[in-house]
């Protein structure tokens, strides 16, 4: 057993139940998040084997994936959504799991709801049968996205079998310029280390720009650690974390809060902590980031151009770039700011929190979206929606020409309700620009919420810094 003085190692060591002869560890899992799609098979498996779920109060269920965000009438929900919702409700009831139902104002995307409720806490281990569970690492937690079978194993045994990862620290030096947020920082990092640069690693984000970053921005970053291939993305807890958590419904209170706080303060990596890999990025002159291709590593500044496969590092990369350009319908050398878009999506577990909506609204205030652009925004949860409406953000969006939707995963993935049509090009605040991700032959450009708003206004990918 390696052991160490990093945040990752400290939380890991606190949760090891046993080590198997080949070095695989059995980790105790503190928190489990469940959503409607994909949990069907989990509960079916548990029932079929006649097993039970110990400590069900450590589980929180909320529907988010396969839901219409434009309409929640019985007609709109008929079919698959209704069946999945019913099944989630029944499974939660039968196994004694707390369930936030569709028409509860707390409903939303699991990775928005968990932190919002204080279910996500520093120092804990958290799992969900969804890859973007990495989001919760923003609180200094070990958050693992797992498949359905793995999730079933964790629900029944309370443990996850895994080998200790190598550790990587990505340091972000300098003060981030105006309009540069978590989305730009993480896209720049993925551009630097590559979409499999983090494979096998637990990545800690650190440095001056992270210390200055809000919890929303930190969640955006850890959310996309998975897009670098990492098993875990995390940020050590600090005063920003504690301030954000204090008073949340499920966060500890009173003396318990003080006791927890004393422990949480021991979690940051020691000054002498050794990482297996260190990467440093200077962000002081970073331009807003935008993807041009079909992998999150296909990223440039908005003032940049579509690259030429002739300039690729090797034959395999040239091949991948050619394929991506073909799919995206882009020619090498095209200025990113010349690329026209007809769809804009603001939402997803990456960028649907209140700060995201505020920054998009700041760009949209007093402006209208371009002719021919279809834009909508789906707040990450009912509580985010309520807060945004209290601040009048919904009116800014609708007056600009956006649709103001209900909370859910919406057009982040090619769900049954919202997807791109063949050839449609979208500025999207979500996390994956894979081929066909948002719909068959749809073309996705990943950007921050402010950049998405600027694209909606101009009808092209646009530099939000021009909207200062």
């Amino acid at each position, binding site marked *: 057993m390696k052991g160490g003085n990093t945040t990752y190692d400290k939380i890991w060591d606190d949760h090891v139940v046993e080590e198997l002869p080949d070095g*695989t560890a059995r980790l105790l899992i503190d928190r489990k998040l469940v959503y409607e799609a994909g949990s069907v098979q989990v509960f079916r498996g548990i029932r079929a084997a006649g097993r039970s779920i110990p400590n069900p109060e450590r589980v929180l269920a909320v529907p988010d994936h396969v839901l219409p965000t434009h309409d929640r009438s019985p007609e709109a929900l008929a079919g698959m959504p209704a069946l999945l919702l019913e099944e989630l409700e029944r499974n939660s009831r039968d196994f004694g799991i707390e369930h936030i139902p569709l028409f509860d104002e707390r409903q939303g995307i699991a990775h928005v709801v968990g932190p919002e409720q204080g*279910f996500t806490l520093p120092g804990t281990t958290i799992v969900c049968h969804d890859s973007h569970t990495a989001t919760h690492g923003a609180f200094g937690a070990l958050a693992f996205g797992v*498949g359905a079978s793995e999730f079933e194993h964790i629900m029944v045994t309370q443990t996850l*079998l895994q080998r200790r990862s190598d550790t990587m620290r990505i340091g972000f030096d300098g003060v981030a310029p105006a309009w540069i947020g978590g989305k730009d920082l993480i896209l720049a990092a993925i551009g630097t280390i590559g979409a*499999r640069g983090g494979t096998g690693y637990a990545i800690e984000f650190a440095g001056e720009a992270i210390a200055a970053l809000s919890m929303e921005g930190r969640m955006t970053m850890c959310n996309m650690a998975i897009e670098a291939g990492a098993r875990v993305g995390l940020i050590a807890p600090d005063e920003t974390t504690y301030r954000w958590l204090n008073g949340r419904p499920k966060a500890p209170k009173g003396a*318990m809060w003080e006791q*927890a706080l004393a422990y949480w303060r021991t979690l940051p990596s020691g000054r002498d902590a050794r990482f297996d890999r260190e990467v440093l990025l200077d962000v002081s002159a970073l331009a807003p980031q935008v993807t041009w291709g079909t992998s999150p590593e296909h990223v440039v500044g908005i003032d940049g151009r579509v690259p030429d496969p002739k300039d690729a590092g090797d034959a395999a990369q040239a091949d991948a770039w050619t394929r991506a350009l073909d799919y995206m319908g882009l020619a090498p050398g095209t200025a990113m700011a010349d690329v026209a878009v007809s769809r804009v999506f603001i939402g997803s577990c990456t960028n649907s929190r209140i700060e995201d909506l505020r920054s998009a609204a700041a760009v949209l205030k007093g402006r209208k979206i371009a002719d021919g652009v279809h834009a909508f925004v789906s707040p990450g949860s009912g509580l985010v929606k309520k807060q945004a409406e209290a601040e009048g953000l919904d009116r800014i969006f609708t007056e600009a020409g956006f649709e103001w939707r209900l909370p859910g995963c919406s057009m982040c*993935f090619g769900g049954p309700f919202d997807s791109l049509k063949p050839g449609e090009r979208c500025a999207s605040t979500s996390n994956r620009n894979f081929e066909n991700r948002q719909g068959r032959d749809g073309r996705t450009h990943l950007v921050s919420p402010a950049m998405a708003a600027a694209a909606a206004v101009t009808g092209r990918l646009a530099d939000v810094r021009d909207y200062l």
Partner: protein
Amino acid sequence: MTPFTTLRAVAAPLPIANISTDDIFPGPGATGLPAGMSFSDPAKMGPNAFAVMRWNADGSPRPDFILNRSPWDTAQIIVARDNFGCGSSREHAVWCMAAIGMRCVIAPSFGDIFYGNCFKNGMLPVRLPVEQVERLLSLTAAPETATLNVDLTAQTVIDAGGGVHRFEVDAYRRDLLLNGLDEIEASLRAGPLIEAHDAAYCARRPWLRADTA
């Protein structure tokens, strides 16, 4: 779970990097919800596998796609480039591959969650160095050299040119696969150990207990 010991089968080359779980199991927005596809029953997910690459929008097969051509339409092995199975945790990606008879994937690297999901379903993911994968990609592209021998006991892949490629795999996962063991059953035997650890842990971190949560 079906045990995996040795496999002699046709391998289909997919010389593409970053094949994502969205490629392997596209969402309904990419495929529609055509009859014949299933989004909930693993045994019926065969038609969903690689659907966009494999089928035209009207549901007819794309003749250029390798799995629609003989002898690769009987393939039980896939050979691909870097980062196979990157993306989401959807185990559907493994289920739909299993539903068309796949038992093994060979690539230089894998999406981490996909890699773990394979073992839960009797599917063996094999990591080999880039040069060896490139060799397998070119050999399996020809019908007469498309067959590979995979031996989990010896931890080798043998190609039709006589090349022997040794691979590494965690001993614990290997044992589960070789014996077709139920991992949950095995873990439940550690029950007393888990409970003891949990009790000590909850005493150490009392704010995490239910009554304060």
